């Protein structure tokens, strides 16, 4: 008797395309006959398993979902790094960059106390530029005098608050502020106001 059928030969038998030798073996081999019967039964069971019908409402949702996806693809087709060039991303990033640029450039221009590595003149200290105190309104400080006001208020903060906002590492802000552009000064005011407004620990 020829060897028992292999997997592909069983499938050929099911498809009706088996070679004569396979058919001849099958006629004589009870093991292969049993295997074929099981495979045939399983295939029949598998074939009758229908996909459950979804809600009729689903079909129109398919169109809507595809349309939404395609609209998104069209409107936001950019998928690379340039996809980040959006107004809602650029504006906050630009603001942060401005603050960082202002503070870091200021650090490089102000003399430091060699013994401490810190500013030779701290805000509110002896060398601080006398601030012009104006009225505080509760609104974000801006305009002429706002920087001086915030420097003056910030000078009253305890050292821990300066550390919290990273201001302790900066040199004399009063001197630095004079060399900043109006935009940089405004950014510094915002930062100082955040320090002042923060609840004291």
């Amino acid at each position, binding site marked *: 008797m020829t060897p028992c059928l*292999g*997997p*592909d030969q*069983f*499938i*050929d038998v099911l498809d009706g395309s088996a070679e004569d030798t396979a058919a001849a073996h099958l006629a004589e081999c009870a093991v292969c006959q049993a295997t074929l019967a*099981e*495979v045939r*039964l*399983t*295939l029949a*069971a*598998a*074939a*009758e*398993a*229908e*996909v*459950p019908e*979804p809600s*009729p409402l*689903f*079909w*129109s*949702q*398919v*169109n*809507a*979902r*595809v*349309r939404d*996806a*395609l609209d998104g*693809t069209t409107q936001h087709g950019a998928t690379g790094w340039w996809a980040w060039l959006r107004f809602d991303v650029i504006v906050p990033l630009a603001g942060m960059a401005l603050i960082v640029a202002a503070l870091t450039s200021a650090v490089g221009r102000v003399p430091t106390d060699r013994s401490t590595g810190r500013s030779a003149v701290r805000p509110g200290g002896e060398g601080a530029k006398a601030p012009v105190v104006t009225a505080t309104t509760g609104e974000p400080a801006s305009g002429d005098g706002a920087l001086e006001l915030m420097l003056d208020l910030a000078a009253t903060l305890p050292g821990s608050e300066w550390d919290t906002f990273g201001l302790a590492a900066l040199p004399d802000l009063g001197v630095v502020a004079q060399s900043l552009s109006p935009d940089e000064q405004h950014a510094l005011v915002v930062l100082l106001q955040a320090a002042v407004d923060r609840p004291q620990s």
Partner: protein
Amino acid sequence: MRPDTTTAPWSLAASSAPAMPTTMTDEALVEASLAGATDAFDELVTRHRRAVYHVCYRFVNNHEDAADLTQDTFVRAWKARATFRGQARFSTWVHRIAVNVSLNQVSLKTPRGEAVDFDTMADTREPAPGHSLVVAERQAMVRAAVAALPPRQRAALILRTYHELSHQEVAALVGTSVGAVKANVFHALANLRKRLGPSL
């Protein structure tokens, strides 16, 4: 594949442009969509969404994933519509996209599937009163067992059994040989037999 003739209640066509004639061939609709007519593609989605959903469902065995894959299939078809040359029917072309999308999904994660406990679902009731329920449960068991097969066996069995593709077509789709497809179908059936056991 059976075309879906249910009309989509929404469409750009409904609000801003005349609807695509349903007498247009798929190929003509593809041409129209290439010219920018999104409502033409909408009509293609309407015609083929059911068949695509069925392909996807066979692979993942749950509605949520099948719905996602159906959407993904048509989005890819839209993006690739310029590559549709008309050598094959659109239904075959989008069918292949659905299979590839489903195969990618299958290779990425185990499907959620319908919750079926094989040990406790062996049915011992009289068939007469709840015959349809019995049939539904058995079909659910079979679908779950199919979805639990190894990916290549699952793909071969689904494509050969439910979509009546030839072994050559299945081999081309899954990137293997005809012999391997036949072997996968056989082992898929053997595994199904083991899993389903006496419930068959």
